């Protein structure tokens, strides 16, 4: 499940991909699930640093991880991203249209001679 706490989800995706280390992690996961130590192997960074990057990737909805026993397995999550992102995009578009019209309506009240003028 995705929970963005109000942040713009696409911003989180781009933010997540802005870091070269995280891109290496995404490229690795695009080939299949991997443990945190698998992800850390090609990177010159500590395990806690890798965990922090993993948290950013998870917050963006790009990656999901699950701990079984002592091993945390990470996988790419395009499906979850697609569903929730697409729903948000659709509903946002509906609201953007409505709020544009609200602006036109308010402007028309100010200036009845030009009812379609934008504020």
């Amino acid at each position, binding site marked *: 499940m995705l929970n963005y706490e109000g942040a713009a989800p696409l911003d989180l995706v781009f933010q997540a991909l802005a870091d070269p280390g995280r891109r290496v992690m995404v*490229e690795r996961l695009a080939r299949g699930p991997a443990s945190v130590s698998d992800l850390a192997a090609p990177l010159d960074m500590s395990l806690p640093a890798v965990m922090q990057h993993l948290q950013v990737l998870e917050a963006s909805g790009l990656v999901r991880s699950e701990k079984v026993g002592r091993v945390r397995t990470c996988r790419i999550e395009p499906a979850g991203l697609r569903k*929730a992102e697409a729903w948000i995009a659709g509903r946002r578009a509906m609201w953007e249209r409505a709020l544009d019209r609200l602006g036109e*309506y308010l402007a028309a009240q100010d200036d009845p001679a030009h009812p379609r003028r934008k*504020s």
Partner: protein
Amino acid sequence: MTKRSADHATFVIERTYSAAPARVFAAWSTAEAKAAWFVGPAGKWSVLERKLDFRVGGRERVRGAIAGGPVTDFDACYFDIVPNERIVYAYGMHLDDRRISVSLATIEFKPQGTGTRLVLTEQGVFLDGYDDAGSRERGTRGLLDQLEAALRQAA
């Protein structure tokens, strides 16, 4: 058979209007004003039913037909109203007889200079993966294109 699913999401939209909070609020609280802007896609949507009982516990219903498409049904119940400041309502959306989502909408009207900053927060559950009159698919395509471009750039 319908494949069942429930996906949760939250988003925020902010707008600034030059009109004062009382006037922006009035555009939400009276049926006549709301009918001027709270409508379906321009030129493709015609209203079938519109009712607004703007008080705590009151209901709102807006049904309309998309040309060559389904009937849209917005069914809301108001839970919190602070005049000129805040509105909270829950609403369900149907396409024909399929319930596609249930949401909680919070509209905040904040003074900004002589105008208003409107903050709309929607928290919802999107049911059974139904296409929101095509916009879901367009949203998906746009997103995947952007993601692909970002990954290509990164490579």
